[in-house]
């Protein structure tokens, strides 16, 4: 390995260290499957490493990585639909289990219960969203990316991103309003 390769490897290593948790978190929230999120995260960074020399910095590293992760996730579900004779069961946790993780700031038992209920309702709404709406919603309200970054990561226009966000928020609002 020559000096240029070593330097690129070191650079990529720091990219992995700084961005891996966020990519994993997005994939975990998208799939609710720890094993799958871990596998897709590894595939994402493997693919990024192979293409690291082609990354020209037109977008941020985070947006570029997120785009790879979104495409891998799409490929995974497409392959899964095609290979229907394979394992049909997923390891995704159910909504109740996902709602067990509560915001750390809630002190009293009552507040924790209310927070758990709210989180469960949002998970339920997220579960009912289309793949694209879910992706846009999670990127905006969990990863807190800018609309332009979401557009870049998903390959959609900003207008389309806004429309998906609006519909997703509408569903969340309806669910929160309907079950109060």
């Amino acid at each position, binding site marked *: 390995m020559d000096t240029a390769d070593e330097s690129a490897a070191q650079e990529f290593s720091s990219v992995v260290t700084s961005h891996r948790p966020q990519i994993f*978190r997005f994939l975990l929230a998208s799939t609710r499957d720890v094993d799958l999120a871990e596998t897709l995260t590894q595939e994402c960074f493997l693919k990024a490493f192979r293409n690291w020399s082609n990354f020209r910095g037109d977008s941020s590293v985070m947006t570029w990585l997120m785009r790879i992760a979104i495409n891998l996730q799409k490929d995974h579900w497409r392959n899964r639909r095609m290979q229907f004779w394979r394992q049909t069961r997923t390891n995704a946790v159910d909504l109740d289990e996902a709602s067990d993780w509560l915001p750390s700031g809630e002190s009293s038992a009552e507040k924790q219960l209310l927070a758990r209920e*709210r989180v469960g309702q949002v998970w339920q709404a997220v579960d009912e969203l289309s793949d694209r709406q879910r992706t846009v919603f999670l990127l905006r309200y969990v990863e807190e990316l800018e609309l332009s970054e979401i557009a870049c990561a998903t390959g959609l226009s900003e207008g389309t991103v806004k429309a998906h966000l609006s519909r997703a928020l509408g569903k969340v609002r309806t669910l929160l*309003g309907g079950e109060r």
Partner: protein
Amino acid sequence: MDKFKAERPEDWEALDPVLKQALGDFKQSVHAWSEAVYSQPRTVHLTVAHRAWRLAAGWAMASVLLVGALSGGVYERHHQQEVARIAAAREAAQQRQLAAERAQEEEDLLARVDSDVSREVPSAMEPLASLMAADETK
């Protein structure tokens, strides 16, 4: 809670308080879950082993089914050939037996006719026949 406020999307303030609270809780819940899972020791080797075992079991099952289907087909074909061979042999034996019976019947008939023809003499010629018999004895 306030430390998240600075990081929130710019359209955050346009949301109603209930939705704002729910989205904030949801975000923190996902972050907490992800951090907890991320900091756990990896168990990838177990998963891989489990998947490899499942794959091997799948292949073994498929192989057993394939071998079973092939064996069944071969046995069925062999069985049919054997049945056909026995039926053909039985048919041939029956034919041979029938032919032998017919040949015997024909032979008996001819012998009977021959005997009848050779021994029966019209009554008017019986004295002559007795004379011929007496000459033959001499």
